């Protein structure tokens, strides 16, 4: 099942566009940074080269012009002016459009962009001859001879990589002598059609710098073996015999007892074939790209293994045979490690998500006529891939809101004695088994009076209700709520914030709001680390067994008789001097059986709030593979999912944030009465 090469390229191109965009945005702040210029150039070069290979001709043609412009910047012939960067950013959008295969049509928009690009580069170009001479002098004085050996992956042809094009590109750099090495070629009957077993060695004499050779291979670089060596003086190389001995040592695949024809041929041609790690290889081999679907299957298997292991553990505990138990424990340890490793594969740093917002903020700020600086922190914080994907839309809403409603115009800011430039910070940090993601702005803050008026108007709260600030803030997440007086193109339609809340709750997370007038607003999203497997506490209420996510559990205490009796009117527990409200799950779940004589209270927390859950029995810890509930149970609020226990029966997983909210409401009601 070889993937469609065009699809592979599309995905690669998206990554490259993103890379390019990041480099350009950084260049805006650090003009002249050579690393950034090189990154941008490489991305453009790869898009052009791969695009041409995979038949995206319009894209390749268009990108060629940008590449030339950045080649000029790279060689110091031009500067990366703000104008050029802006133009290139719009060009990226156009390149994205060109990815559409139907886009291979007359392209007036592209022509216009290229026209503007030409004007810009021509006017900005310093004297050309001098710059070229300087660049050449710095890199490689005069002509040099390189020995280039390369091996493409066996599936290169299937992936649409054409070695002839690579050779042609090398030839374009200068005179070449090329030898195809056939040593790895299997007998004809064993030759898989379509697979590539040839290697090439090329002697190239060129005035171009070494980097020009790397550039030829740039878009297949990650998958290939490439060795390039500059020969000080090709005439004065070691003798043929030495070369062959050396080659035999260093290249075990030439294992024939006698010198094979290939080695001889290549040695004759190249004079000094050495096996030397090509620069850049180490970093290229560090990661592989796999399809998300395979990963999901793997997670599913691990989930099944964890369930089977739970069953084994249960059996081992009831088995009198002492030999059985150590094995079961060993398997438990292994399956736990396997689970952690597998879950680790799914973890992606959130920086990839934050990165996308730089462009959004830049463009929106321009549109709104505001000066806004986006800063990010904690990009390395890792979250489950699914969570990251599903976070994108809510974060877009929140960032847009911060820009549109939060940050004031530069004039208003100045009048309020604040710097003209507004700041928005996106940050992520681990907190136990949760990740906190916050969007903080230094704008005008939420207007409590306006929120109250609006909430009363919409009937969300009764007029004159006594509500805490936090409760009022949370009104903004109600469907149909908006305090914006004018509807702008960005936000303020009254949709958005409720979508945010629903999306975050769908991820088993919580939204918190903090704000101070004139100082700004901070919205914090609390999210679980993973959606697939968690540690759980197995409990029993009546006949039913339930799972409480262990990360939410603070402690378990016994429900004293005094507390039990006293709680008829008020359900509070005195926990070392703190009053903690508690909920009787028996009542909540309408359990018909009489309560156990010694009920336990599991204290759970969500955010800053704690609540006690009264249960009949605490059974113990349980590896919980989370299965979501079907749409038929969409109206059941107390549970976030279900899992399968060791004996094959199903147990429900308690939705702690929801229960805590219910407990706090209970608390508020009790306090009011």
């Amino acid at each position, binding site marked *: 099942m070889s993937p469609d090469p065009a699809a592979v390229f599309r995905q690669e191109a998206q990554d490259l566009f993103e890379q390019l965009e990041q480099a350009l945005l950084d260049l805006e702040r650090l003009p002249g940074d050579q690393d950034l210029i090189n990154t941008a150039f490489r991305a453009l070069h790869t898009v052009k080269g791969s695009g041409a290979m995979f038949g995206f001709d319009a894209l390749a043609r268009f990108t060629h012009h940008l590449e030339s412009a950045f080649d000029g910047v790279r060689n110091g012939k031009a500067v990366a002016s703000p104008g050029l960067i802006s133009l290139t950013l719009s060009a990226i959008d156009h390149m994205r459009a060109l990815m559409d295969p139907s886009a291979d049509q007359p392209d007036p928009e592209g022509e216009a962009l290229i026209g503007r690009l030409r004007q810009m580069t021509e006017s900005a170009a310093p004297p050309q001859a001098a710059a070229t001479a300087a660049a050449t002098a710095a890199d490689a004085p005069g002509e040099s001879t390189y020995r280039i050996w390369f091996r493409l992956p066996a599936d290169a042809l299937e992936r649409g990589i054409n070695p002839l094009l690579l050779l042609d590109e090398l030839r374009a750099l200068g005179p070449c002598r090329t030898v195809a090495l056939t040593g790895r070629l299997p007998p004809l009957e064993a030759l898989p059609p379509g697979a590539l077993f040839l290697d090439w060695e090329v002697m190239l004499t060129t005035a171009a710098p070494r980097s020009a050779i790397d550039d030829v291979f740039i878009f297949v670089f990650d998958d290939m073996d490439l060795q390039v060596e500059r020969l000080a003086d090709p005439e004065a190389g070691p003798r043929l015999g030495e070369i062959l001995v050396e080659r035999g040592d260093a290249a075990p695949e030439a294992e024939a007892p006698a010198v094979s024809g290939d080695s001889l041929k290549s040695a004759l041609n190249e004079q000094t074939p050495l096996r030397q790690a090509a620069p850049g290889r180490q970093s290229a081999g560090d990661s592989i790209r796999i399809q998300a679907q395979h990963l999901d299957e793997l997670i599913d298997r691990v989930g099944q293994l964890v369930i089977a292991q739970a069953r084994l553990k249960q059996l081992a505990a009831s088995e009198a045979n002492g030999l059985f138990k150590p094995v079961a424990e060993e398997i438990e340890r292994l399956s736990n490690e396997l689970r952690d490793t597998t879950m680790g594969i799914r973890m992606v740093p959130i920086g990839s998500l934050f990165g996308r917002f730089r462009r959004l903020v830049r463009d929106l700020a321009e549109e709104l006529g505001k000066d806004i600086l986006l800063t990010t922190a904690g990009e390395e914080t890792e979250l489950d891939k699914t969570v990251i994907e599903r976070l994108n839309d809510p974060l877009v809403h929140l960032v847009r809101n911060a820009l549109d409603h939060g940050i004031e115009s530069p004039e208003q800011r100045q009048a309020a004695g604040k710097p003209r430039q507004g700041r928005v910070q996106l940050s992520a940090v681990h907190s136990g088994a949760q990740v906190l993601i916050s969007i903080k702005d230094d704008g005008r803050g939420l207007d409590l009076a306006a929120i109250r008026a609006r909430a009363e108007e919409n009937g969300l709260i009764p007029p004159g209700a006594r509500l805490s600030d936090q409760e009022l803030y949370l009104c903004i997440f109600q469907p149909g709520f908006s305090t914006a007086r004018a509807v702008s193109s960005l936000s303020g339609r009254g949709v958005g914030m409720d979508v945010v809340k629903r999306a975050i709750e769908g991820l088993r997370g919580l939204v918190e709001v903090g704000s101070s007038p004139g100082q700004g607003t901070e919205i914090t999203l609390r999210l679980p680390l993973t959606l697939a497997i968690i540690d759980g506490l197995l409990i029993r209420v009546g006949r039913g067994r339930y799972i409480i996510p262990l990360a939410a559990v603070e402690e378990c205490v016994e429900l004293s008789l005094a507390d039990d009796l006293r709680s008829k009117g008020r359900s509070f527990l005195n926990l070392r001097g703190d009053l903690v409200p508690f909920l009787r799950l028996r009542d909540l779940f309408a359990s018909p059986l009489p309560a156990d004589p010694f009920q336990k209270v599991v204290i759970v927390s969500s955010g800053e709030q704690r609540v006690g859950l009264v249960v009949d029995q605490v059974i113990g810890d349980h590896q919980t593979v989370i299965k979501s509930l079907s*749409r038929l149970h969409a*109206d059941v609020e107390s549970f976030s999912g279900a899992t399968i226990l060791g004996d094959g029966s199903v147990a429900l997983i308690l939705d702690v944030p929801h229960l805590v909210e219910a407990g706090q409401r209970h608390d508020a009601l009790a306090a009011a009465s």
Partner: protein
Amino acid sequence: MTAAAIAAPLEVLTLSLQGETFALDAAIVHEILDWVPITEVPNARPFVGGLLNVRGKVVPFADLRVSFGMERPERTQDTRIVVIGVPLAGEPTLVGILAEKVFEVTTLLPAALEEPPPIGMRWNPEFIRAIGKRGDDFIIVLAIDRVFAAQEAASRH
């Protein structure tokens, strides 16, 4: 999905609920299970009051007797769970439904099928695709998609 649309012979699984014989399109039936413990979902609607484990998947357990306003006596030794696939909001979903007794897989010929009468029925005619005759007995061919669509809509409020 109307009776008029049934032109070809229809292969069905017949089962009994409160003395009535119902038929399900055999193509949607995945398997028939002996009784397994059902996990009660507190505060769920009686139609989908539970969950069960079908080969490692957590599957909702539905009782069609609720949709047809029938009595719901305790299970007997004949009670079975029929695992079927139904589309819920466009997504194929496995559901276990209760059968007081499972009879057989049989073929109903178009000639033996009639449209449900619009009046004179105890049940919502929406839920019935056709009525078949078999000897002196009637077989009610279920419009199972509509039964579940109605329930799925109810769960959103």
